[in-house]
């Protein structure tokens, strides 16, 4: 089965450090999402891309978060500088418009 691959699976970092999370979407999928999941806020849409172009990143704190798709096989989400409140599980998902969206296994981020 085709999968969305996210790395790393777990990340513990100190406050103020840069964090980069990576996502390899399923080959051929043209839409990629980044979500953040916490107990308090649930699943929040941070940003999404269609055909590698960013369509909406209004869910991201702009001063510290950035999302890019340098090519069709890689999406990145960066946090700089990281803060304890960024601790969450970050999911990447990919798919086609009108089709299913497949989620990756997530990156569990802990900022201490």
């Amino acid at each position, binding site marked *: 089965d085709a999968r969305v691959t996210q790395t790393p699976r777990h990340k513990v970092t100190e406050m103020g450090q840069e964090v980069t999370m990576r996502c390899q979407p399923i080959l051929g999928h043209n839409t990629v999402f980044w*979500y953040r999941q916490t107990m308090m806020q649930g*699943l929040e849409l941070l940003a*999404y891309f269609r055909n590698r172009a960013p369509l909406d990143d209004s869910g991201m704190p702009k001063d510290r978060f950035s999302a890019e798709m340098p090519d069709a096989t890689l999406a990145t989400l960066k946090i700089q500088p990281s803060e304890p409140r960024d601790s969450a599980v970050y999911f990447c998902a990919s798919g086609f418009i*009108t089709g299913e969206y497949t989620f990756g296994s997530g990156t569990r981020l802990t900022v201490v």
Partner: protein
Amino acid sequence: ELKVEQNPLFLSMQEGKNYTIYCNYSTTSDRLYWYRQDPGKSLESLFVLLSNGAVKQEGRLMASLDTKARLSTLHITAAVHDLSATYFCAVVLPYNTDKLIFGTGTRLQVFP
């Protein structure tokens, strides 16, 4: 702004019983998704509903969509313990976007 509400938030039910989870959304949409999430795991796609009146069934789960009422239901028939999980609905904003907004989730626990 699209709001997606699920109820109940928590559901504890006995094996063999039937129950329905409701998903209401606030603006027009032509696509609705149901996902399942086990603790500590990723989201697994259950159903994609693309039109008014759409009904899909898989095993003990049946999902339906009423776009006029802005309502989807996930019906559980003769629940078994393996169905214990958190269930999310997610709605796409209209007008050729992929912006996928998740509901609050319903945590289902099935006991003997």
